[in-house]
């Protein structure tokens, strides 16, 4: 920190102290969330996480003399029209100096609107889309930051993790075959494409390669029939919609093959286990940015507990995520002091280097996306055991060991 800014910071702090009563103005934290529509359950979590953080900050006397209030805007079905209207509403609301979201649009186009309005924006949407917009001219997007880390790990880390499990002798390797099923949305598709090349590079054969249309899938049996004709060692489904993944699990268990099953994202959503019950025991999944609710990562345990104490239910990735985004903002505001100085807040955010629930947060200046990796935000692998996710990899954080799923032969 430069000398002048330090003086400025001290000066601000003094001002804040002396005139705290007069200056203690209200900063509104805008939250873009699907409050209605198909993803309203996630939206509820966004708001709860942010509200928890604001409540806590207010209880501690505010940040740099400011107290906080949450204003929400409904993005309904994440359509461009609704997201734009919601963004404009927040931009037009007096006193909003930061906007947070779990995800607003799948394409992240709203980043453009934020940049135009120079509004600090921290989002946890799909990071490849975010990077795609920002990397063209990073300096134009100094206000926008992706809390979601680089997704590259989703594509690359599954192969070595499974190979490590094989090497550890958990199950035999017959012929290195994998069945990959994906849904036609950018998230699932990008990941499945990356996985295919990762498995190919490692000498695997892809026996089934299916793409299903985006949206609810009525029946997975025809696809499972294809899988069964030539039972692979590994079955992967990257469709992230929880109900689809749950149906897939249930129908797979009707007549399972001797394979390891890996699902993308969906098992992170609490109702997945509720819907599949014991059928999901043994399923593998991974996450970048999941709450590291393990002994090895106290920050994750702490926030997860706070959330659970407050609302009585466990948080998914977004409840704690929004809490942490708010924390990141509070830290930046603490440095800058003036919430209306959006440039400074943006620059302060880039300097963030702190542990958050999902790992160690640090942004990549080239893409404004959180760095991914074992020392930053790791790709964590889980297995569902007795109805709960047990982290089995990486070794640094893991809380349990892989258990051979019940459906696999001895």
């Amino acid at each position, binding site marked *: 920190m430069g000398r002048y800014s330090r003086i400025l910071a001290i000066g601000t702090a003094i001002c804040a102290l002396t005139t705290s009563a007069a200056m203690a103005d209200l900063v509104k934290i805008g939250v873009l969330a699907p*409050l*209605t529509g198909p993803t309203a359950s996630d939206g509820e979590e966004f708001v709860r996480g942010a509200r928890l953080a604001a409540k806590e900050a207010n209880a501690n006397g505010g940040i740099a003399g400011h107290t906080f209030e949450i204003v929400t*805007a*409904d993005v*309904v*079905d*994440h*359509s*461009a*029209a*609704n997201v*734009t*209207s919601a963004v*404009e*509403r927040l*931009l*037009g*609301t007096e006193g909003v100096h930061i906007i947070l979201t779990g995800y607003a*649009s*799948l*394409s*992240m*186009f709203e980043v*453009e609107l934020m940049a*135009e*309005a120079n509004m600090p924006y921290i989002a946890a949407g*799909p990071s490849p*889309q975010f990077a*795609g*917009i920002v990397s*063209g001219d990073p300096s134009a997007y100094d206000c926008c930051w992706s809390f979601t880390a680089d997704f590259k790990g989703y594509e690359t880390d599954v192969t070595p993790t499974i190979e490590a499990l094989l090497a550890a002798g958990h199950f035999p390797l017959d012929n290195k075959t994998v069945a990959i099923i994906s849904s*036609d*949305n*950018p998230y699932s*598709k990008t990941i499945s494409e990356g996985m295919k090349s990762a498995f190919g590079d490692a000498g695997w054969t892809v026996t089934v390669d299916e793409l299903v*249309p*985006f949206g609810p899938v009525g029946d997975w049996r025809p696809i499972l029939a294809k899988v069964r004709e030539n039972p692979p060692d590994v079955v992967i489904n990257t469709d992230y919609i929880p109900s689809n993944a749950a149906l897939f699990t249930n129908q797979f268990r009707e007549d399972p093959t001797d394979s390891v099953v890996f699902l993308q994202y969906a098992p992170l959503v609490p109702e997945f286990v509720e819907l599949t019950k014991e059928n999901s025991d043994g399923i593998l999944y991974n996450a970048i940015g999941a709450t590291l609710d393990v002994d090895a990562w106290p920050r994750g345990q702490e926030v997860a507990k706070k959330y659970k104490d407050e609302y009585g239910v466990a948080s998914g990735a977004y409840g704690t995520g929004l809490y942490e985004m708010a924390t990141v903002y509070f830290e930046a505001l603490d440095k800058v002091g003036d919430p209306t100085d959006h440039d400074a807040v943006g620059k302060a955010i880039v300097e963030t280097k702190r542990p958050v629930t999902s790992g160690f947060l640090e942004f990549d200046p080239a893409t404004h996306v959180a760095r991914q990796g074992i020392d930053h935000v790791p790709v964590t692998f889980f297995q569902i055991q007795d109805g709960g996710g047990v982290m089995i990899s990486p070794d640094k954080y893991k809380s349990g060991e892989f258990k051979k799923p019940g459906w696999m032969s001895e």
Partner: protein
Amino acid sequence: MKYAPSFQRTNGFWPVVIALCIAAALPFFFTETHIRHILILIFVYAILASNWDLSLGYGGIVNFAHIAFFAIGLYTYGIAAKIIGLDPWLALLLAPVLAIAFAALLAIPVLRLEGIYVILVTIAAAQLLFQLVVSQGDFTGGTSGMVLIPRLEIVGYRLSSDGRIGYYYLSLLLVVFSTVFLYKLERSALGRAIKALRDNKYYAISRGVSEGRIRLLTLCASAIFPGLAGAFYGAYLRIASPDVFGLGFLTITLSILLLGGISTIWGPLIAAVVITAFAEILADYGASRSIIIAAMIIAVVVVYPGGLYAAMQEIWGLGTRLRTNVTAAWRRRFQASLRQEAMGVKDHLVETRHGPVSVCDTGNGDQTIIFVHGNSSCKEVFRRQFDEFAGQYRLVTFDLPGHGVSPNGNPDEDYAVEAYAEIIRNLVDSLDLKTPIVFGWSLGGYAALEYAARGTP
């Protein structure tokens, strides 16, 4: 068209001029981009709904692929400007061309079907198009859509600068052009053919209207401005995403159309403002907002299917009737002497089955002559006859309901030749006119004939 007055001479002229002035001045009062954004959305919805009315209201073709025209405009702009690298303004002009092409394609199945089947085939066509757009991810960005579509600039000036003022005026311009286009079209020969085909298909065909050609033209014409609006939307939001195919967009536009009233140009424009503003006011109410808006739409459709514009016209009509009634009453009261001077006798109100009418009756003479005046006239036109025949005959004349100083009647009941004949009969009875000679001029002539035809000598 000969019988339709030019726009400058209609009741709508001044309201439109005033609305236009307000629309042009609004950005100076509302500087926040949020409100301007809503206004721009209103304009886009207004274009969509009012052009939909061309096929749905005027043409009677229930085209549920109307939003697909918009989507085609949007994607045409996106692909042309971003992937092909065409100049954005050229891409903007290309959009309606492709929208028209799609409309022509759509016309093929629509021409063969009627009623609800048109709804179904157009829904299917829109869904098919949606599948196509989503599957061609390399060009369209698939389910997430394409972002960073080039924006519109005029010699380096971004239309989005200064709080989107450029886009605001561009969208206003589009609304104006679209409305002028619809207005002119409706009053052209083509517009009359479109309406004729809707109202009485077989009669229209027998009079030489080609059903296929007109339906094709209707669909194509209704695609032009939605295509343009789609391209504008793409340039404005800089994203083309497949959610425009969704039920949400369709429902809003259809609600605007039905709430405004079908077969009117102005209804959808007014309803676009009302619904969008209402939705914005209720934005904080989440799920309840959708419930309230849906309930409101049901209420309007059920209680007053004519829609907002019809309501405005009826209220206006009510005002006019009130005004003319008051004027007539005032004249009956305070200008009686003037009329007496002209006619020689004082007029008075006589009750009939169709309400009171103002009657002049010379009162003496064996043979009565009843004079019935013509359309838009009054009993005083017969003052010379009264001068001439007074003394020879008993002369009676009266103001038809809604004419002269008679009070207004009920349009459904009282403004008909049959009703006039009945009034004459009532007068004959109540004034004891025996067997009168009935003289009718113009419309009065028809009334006299009807009176005679009823067998009352």
